């Protein structure tokens, strides 16, 4: 079970990381020329400063998602071990707790991969113009 979980989770996270997951900070970086979100940041003379700051943020985003994947994989593996042990000794509470924990971890990871990019697009598109 653990081997199956490990292979499946690595395949899923790898696919999400390399193909499906948009990078909202990259979108923000491209937003000066109209990124995939369609927002635009008119920074005026401060545009070069933003151009230096946002690549750092993009790198931080990549690092954060990689750390999230590692933590979620380890957490899922832990729950798989716990569920296996619970099932083998007949501990139904332990097994159900492990299943619930694994579902929680999957929901959290899906939040990072699906909710955050959409939220970022929403924020970029609704950024207020200068009120003066």
């Amino acid at each position, binding site marked *: 079970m653990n081997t199956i979980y490990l292979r499946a989770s690595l395949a899923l996270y790898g696919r999400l990381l390399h193909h499906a997951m948009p990078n909202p900070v990259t979108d923000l970086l491209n937003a000066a020329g109209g990124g995939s979100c369609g927002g635009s940041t008119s920074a005026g003379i401060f545009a070069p400063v933003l151009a230096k700051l946002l690549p750092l943020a993009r790198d931080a985003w990549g690092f954060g998602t990689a750390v*999230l994947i590692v933590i979620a994989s380890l957490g899922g593996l832990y729950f798989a071990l716990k569920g296996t042990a619970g099932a083998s000794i007949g501990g139904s509470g332990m097994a159900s707790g492990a299943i619930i924990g694994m579902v929680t971890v999957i929901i959290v990871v899906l939040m990072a991969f699906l909710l955050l990019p959409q939220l970022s697009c929403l924020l970029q598109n609704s*950024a207020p113009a200068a009120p003066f």
Partner: protein
Amino acid sequence: MMHASEILVNILRGAWGAVMGVMVAAAVLGMLAQLVRLSGSAALGAPMITARAASSMLGMIVVVLYAYLAVPAIVRAVSSSALGGGGCGPAAELGQAAAYAMAAITSLRIAKATLISIFSAMSGAQTGMSYAISEAAESIIGMLLISIAVPVAAAFLGAC
């Protein structure tokens, strides 16, 4: 005078756009950091840290909504009341240009305070939002006081 004020306000307008861009990036990265914390605590089975991380995420969304919705409304309301100040002749023009520039500086100060509060919410600190609100109140009171000072000074000097 108005021309000089226009140049200053254009620079501040660019700064506003830059602050908003950095704010979005900071909010997204902060939420990602809280999600990492949340997933770690969920994996370890620590409900208190999970709840704290989730509430930090919600707090960050509230701060961003405050910056997006409340700050422009506050600045528009205050600047519309301050721009109609008294005075006459060159003093009135000077006061109007000063109020125009002050509105820009005030909104930037509030945006900066909100950005700082997002950074503090990112690390799970509690004081960020109160700092942003007190900074906004301080800026507004200062702006209103200065907009009163120009007509008073003009009347004192006998300009009107």
